[in-house]
């Protein structure tokens, strides 16, 4: 068993739409499906969401080669148009790879929105297998990105 690795990262993006509309992209399943499902090589994808404090969300994907991934989310804090805090775990082929806490903050910026996505991650044993599959190339990272996708 490897020690659990901890890390965190931040992605900041600006959108030319008011916070309420950006927030709706996260809070409405139909809209969220549209921008999160970006896997041309996925065979089946199921995505369910109960967007409320205490609610859950699940994304399960199966690839043509038989591999599968599952992400389960749990919402801890929601401030409409301003903030979403959720935890999620990611499993590959039934093995848990990571557990994360994500905070997304939306703030008005010019005529649009500045969105700050912060993820704090505990990487578990399964993460070592994932890293072994990549060879340090962008191609490898793209492949890993597809495997990690939710």
């Amino acid at each position, binding site marked *: 068993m490897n020690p659990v690795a901890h890390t965190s990262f931040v992605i900041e993006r600006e959108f030319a739409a008011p916070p309420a509309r950006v927030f709706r992209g996260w809070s409405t399943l139909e809209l969220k499906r549209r921008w999160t499902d*970006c896997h041309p090589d996925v065979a089946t994808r199921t995505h369910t969401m109960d967007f409320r404090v205490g609610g859950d969300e699940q994304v399960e994907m199966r690839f043509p080669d038989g591999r599968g991934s599952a992400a389960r989310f749990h919402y801890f804090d929601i401030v409409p148009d301003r903030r979403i805090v959720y935890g999620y775990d990611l499993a590959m082929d039934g093995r848990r790879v990571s557990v994360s806490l994500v905070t997304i903050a939306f703030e008005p910026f010019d005529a649009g929105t500045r*969105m700050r996505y912060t993820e704090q991650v505990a990487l578990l044993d399964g993460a070592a297998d994932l*890293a*072994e599959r*990549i060879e340090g190339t962008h191609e*490898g*990272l793209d492949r890993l990105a597809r495997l990690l996708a939710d």
Partner: protein
Amino acid sequence: MHSVATDAGLDRSFQALADVNRRAMIDRLARHPASVSDLAKPLGLRLPATVKHLQVLEAAGLVESEKTGRVRTYRVAPGALSEVEAWVAARKRLLNAQFDRLERMLADESTDADA
């Protein structure tokens, strides 16, 4: 950012990767294994200099080599990239791709609203 990588290991990796030729070699080896002369040619390096660079990379645990007959073949060592770094890089690429889609979706919506 915190990771479990040891400071000593990181120092050696950073030192090994501080040289532009050594970075080019890693990049090349990440695609497929290669011999010393394979690596020397595109970089315009002499063989002894190339061997020296490869020794630094090997000592840092970034590449490994195997001798078959008279040819020594180098490859990127398994786990040369910190798995934490690799994971975060992959995660960021995926999220940014999704946020690009979110951005396009919001732009399309406002076009719809204007229409």
